[in-house]
């Protein structure tokens, strides 16, 4: 038996070497399939991790309040918004709140025109309170953030994201320069840390001004948008606070008893969950991509193995004429397929991991990419299974023929 195995292995190796171009193509199919799967899966994992971790910075005692437009209403062109009156109602009528961090979009979700020097651009404008920094864990890289005095006096100062500095050709240190937002000039007092891109969208393309200044700047109250993040004093009471906010907002927004909420009050956990759904959708797309890669690789491998066996049916005939047992032939083709598949699969793992190492160098904004072990193992198993299946089944059929039929095969 051992001798058989050794002879089989030798014959298999000879087969791989002798059919160099076919073996090469088969291996190439396996490498592409396995590497594609590893890269896709690891990128998706990395993205969803970065999204999840950005919500983890919100503590367990935070609630977020934002407007919610049902899909039905969206279709009818309606957009629900929180108003400054909602903000005041929460401030005045909800107990157990420790901190309120409102973010006002005085020019709406899409922002407005900004200008400095001779350049103009378009960016989002946030009206924020001083505690914005700690709530969202974003800090200034230069200068200072909006402070209490700014808020108190509704001073026309601003803190800009690095993308704005870049778009408006501002100098590396733009502090003290003036920026026109809407109709007014704001003095730049700080620059935020760079956050990079998520899904190709810059996280640094915004300007922050004091909340109070934002209230004054509102050009069209119908466009203004607002979201509120609050922390509760007692984490155990978070649900009570949540219910109270819902109650206050329903009253303030004059919803009748049967109406659905046109806003959402979520805990950080619920927020994470809703984003998990988004990453879930991305993962779904990734699964689709992976499926297609596997299918393409699988068909390629299958095709190569089938051609290989068909071309070699004569050879099988010769071996049978010389007295090979069915088992001898099957063993040879089995070992050959396993050898090819493992080699192609492992090479694919190497290539995939190599690409994973290179991506962060080319795209520095992406967080570190984990090597997806299960995807690597799974895809190697898959290509091996396909390779073995389509290597051995036709070989078994050829080995079943009378030798003379196999020999007649052209």
């Amino acid at each position, binding site marked *: 038996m051992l001798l058989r195995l050794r002879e089989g292995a030798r014959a298999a190796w000879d*087969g791989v070497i*002798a059919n160099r171009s076919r073996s090469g193509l088969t291996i190439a199919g396996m490498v592409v399939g396995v590497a594609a799967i590893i890269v896709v899966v690891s990128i998706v994992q990395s993205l969803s991790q970065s999204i999840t971790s950005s919500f983890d910075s919100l503590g367990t005692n935070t609630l977020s309040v934002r407007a919610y437009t049902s899909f039905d209403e969206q279709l009818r062109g309606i957009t629900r918004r929180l108003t400054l009156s909602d903000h005041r109602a929460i401030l005045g009528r909800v107990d157990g709140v420790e901190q309120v961090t409102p973010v006002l979009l005085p020019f709406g979700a899409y922002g407005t025109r900004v200008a400095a020097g001779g350049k103009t651009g378009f960016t989002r404008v946030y009206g924020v309170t001083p505690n914005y920094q700690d709530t969202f864990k974003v800090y200034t890289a230069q200068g200072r953030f909006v402070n209490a005095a700014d808020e108190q006096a509704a001073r026309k100062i601003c803190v800009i994201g690095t993308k704005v500095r870049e778009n408006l050709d501002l100098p590396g240190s733009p502090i003290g320069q003036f920026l026109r937002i809407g109709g007014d000039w704001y003095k730049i007092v700080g620059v935020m840390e760079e956050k990079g891109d998520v899904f190709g969208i810059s996280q640094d393309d915004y300007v922050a001004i004091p909340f109070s200044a934002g209230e004054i700047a509102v050009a069209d109250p119908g466009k203004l948008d607002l979201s509120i993040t609050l922390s509760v004093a007692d984490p155990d009471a978070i649900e009570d606070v949540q219910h109270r906010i819902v109650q206050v907002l329903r009253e303030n927004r004059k919803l009748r008893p049967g109406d659905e909420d046109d806003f959402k009050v979520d805990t950080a956990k619920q927020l994470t969950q809703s984003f998990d759904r988004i990453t879930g959708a991305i993962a779904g797309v990734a699964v689709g991509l992976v499926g297609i890669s596997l299918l393409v690789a699988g068909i390629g491998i299958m095709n190569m193995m089938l051609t290989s066996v068909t071309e070699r049916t004569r050879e099988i005939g010769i071996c049978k004429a010389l007295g090979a*047992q069915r088992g001898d032939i099957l063993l040879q083709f089995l070992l050959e397929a396993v050898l090819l598949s493992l080699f192609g699969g492992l090479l694919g793992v190497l290539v995939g991991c190599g690409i994973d190492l290179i991506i962060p160098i080319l795209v520095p904004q992406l967080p570190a990419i984990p090597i997806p072990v299960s995807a690597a193992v799974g895809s190697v198993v898959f290509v091996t299974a396909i390779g073995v299946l389509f290597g051995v089944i036709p070989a078994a059929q050829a080995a079943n023929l009378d030798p003379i039929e196999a020999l007649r095969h052209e």
Partner: protein
Amino acid sequence: MTPLIQCSALTKVYRMGDADVFALDGIDLTIEHNDYVAIIGPSGSGKSTMMNILGCLDTPSSGQFLLNGRDVAKMNDRELAATRNREIGFIFQSFNLLPRATALENVMRPLVYRGISRQERRERAREALALVGLEARVSHLPNELSGGQRQRVAIARALCGEPSLLLADEPTGNLDTATADEIIGLFDRLHRAGNTILLITHEPTIAARCKRAITLADGRIVDDRRREQVLAA
């Protein structure tokens, strides 16, 4: 002693569309050990078909074939493979060498299926190659050899396992006259050394060197005579 081959009422029918083609149509044949037989007959008369059945490469449609007294039809897959491996050395007109194996590896191949050690296989294969005069070509691939040399490798391969029966289907069909002569000389020697040989040929001169000539026509044996008779006639 049981004859090496005993056939009775052997037929091989191919169904072509609606018609049945009788490639063999009732063959009765007995061949003793150490016989040296030429099979002759016009093209399409069933020579190859008969040879393939005798070599256990093909199965008859009906009739009985005993090899060394054993009924081949009753053998299972395993026994059939072992019979091809041990009892029969088959030599094809088109050589049928494994294209990616050297001369030595080709000759060794039947011994591989017997589970003989690599060392012994090598020795026996070298001996067989020496017997056909190819000791200097052991590591050549088939496409690095001439037609005659390829056929000699094929003969060495058939001989190497020391089968009881050597079957050759037009072994010289693809070779020039001089080379054909060498190959037949080799068969003569093998016969004198005790081998049983059946060969198909179209050459009367080759047939004349055998001890016995069987003529096929339309799947039947129409003539079967020994050389003594031929010479006497």
